[in-house]
């Protein structure tokens, strides 16, 4: 089912359908496979470190357990911060009209990295909103497809290819002066950062939590 979003701007309302886009959908992709001596593609599996068990897909269960070793249902999990304090819940915005205010500025948008992109297909497009977007406005939208515990940033913008809804995460870089040198080993390089985001992986991650 295609998701939709209703956007209100200066009294007018527009409705868009969301089409997720990523690098794979635009440029294709490649993956590495392994073949056995007969040229058949091999499946992958996990071998426990003691070598006793070969675990193929579907052979394990992911679960949460508490201090007593009891399983805790995902729907019962309480999300907390590093101090153990329950986090504020941000409810999903699905089904409500997002009211746009004044456009944000460029620097605000540049202080984020993109995590998801949706191309928008307009069912109805208010002329004032269209005009503002064509003038280069970048609007901040409170878009949350599901309940979350971390407030995210979403932007609405257009270019010659269409209108896009861009979900993003803040990256706070400070100004640095001469005395603020950094050694080669001081900053930890995070090689785990996704090379490209994948909607399937994102979907699985999103659905791993209540």
């Amino acid at each position: 089912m295609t998701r939709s979003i209703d956007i209100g701007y200066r009294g007018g309302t527009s409705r868009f359908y969301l089409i997720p886009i990523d690098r794979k959908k635009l440029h294709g992709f490649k993956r590495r496979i392994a073949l056995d001596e007969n040229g058949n593609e091999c499946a992958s599996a996990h071998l426990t470190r003691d070598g006793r068990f070969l675990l193929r897909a579907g052979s394990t269960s992911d679960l949460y357990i508490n201090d007593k070793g009891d399983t805790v249902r995902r729907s019962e999990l309480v999300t907390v911060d590093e101090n153990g304090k329950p986090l504020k819940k941000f409810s999903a915005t699905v089904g409500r009209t997002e009211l746009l205010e004044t456009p944000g500025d460029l620097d605000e948008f540049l202080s984020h990295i993109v995590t998801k992109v949706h191309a928008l297909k307009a069912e109805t497009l208010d002329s004032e909103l269209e005009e503002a977007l064509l003038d280069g406005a970048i609007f901040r939208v409170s878009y949350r497809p599901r309940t979350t515990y971390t407030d995210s940033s979403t932007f609405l913008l257009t270019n010659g290819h269409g209108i896009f809804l861009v979900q993003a995460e803040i990256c706070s870089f400070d100004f640095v002066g001469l005395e603020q040198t950094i050694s080669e080993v001081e900053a930890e390089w995070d090689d785990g950062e996704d090379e490209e985001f994948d909607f399937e992986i994102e979907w699985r991650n999103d659905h791993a939590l209540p």
Partner: protein
Amino acid sequence: MPCRKIRLADHRGREATVLLVPRQKPPDVSYTDPSGSPVRFTRRIKATETTNDTALLSRYGDPDSLAQALIDGDPEIDLQTAGRDAGSCDRVHVGADGQPLYSARSFEVIYDRNGNEIARREPENIPSNLVPDAPPQWSGKLTPKMDVIRRYAFTRAYQIRHSNGLEFDFLFGLARYLEECNSMVLVGSGPKGTGPLILERNGIPMKGFLEGRTKGDRYRLVLHLAAFELKRPEMSS
């Protein structure tokens, strides 16, 4: 782990190898049960190679016999093993007989945007090109910020930092120049400095743009990396 470096050229014909600092990710959230007791994630063994779907189907011959066996008993559960913590595991390839392979040939399969296989080839390792042997070139391709951010999806960003006074002068000058131009400059590989950047071995090629700002005697220089352009896919949705 040591910080990664990038070899950069500037508008004055100077070049330096400077540090790339990743963004600070927001702190990870954790979970408790309803009573406030902390919970942890665990991966438990559910089935082994003798009790998984394939093995059971092979043992009972056909789905009906297997279904009857599942009704009559619990052949899918190895009571000695089910529920054990899987712990750390190594990833292995398994052959058609379900046994681990000690050697396998690797191939790289290329798919088009619709997910159709279009080519197979021997995999080749493509190294990172952030610090090339030859001096990098200043691309000179300055683009207004407004145009750049509406054209590309910047999926990564790294701050460029100095590790000594000479590098500070180099980077501060570059940041001030970009700020005065109110533009971002294309940073890339190759003889013209316009080719894609590959951050890690076999990483995806990305388009890099440098954004600079200054505040008094301080600067902020950020390398924004785009994995793709903002445009609609050609396939039907």
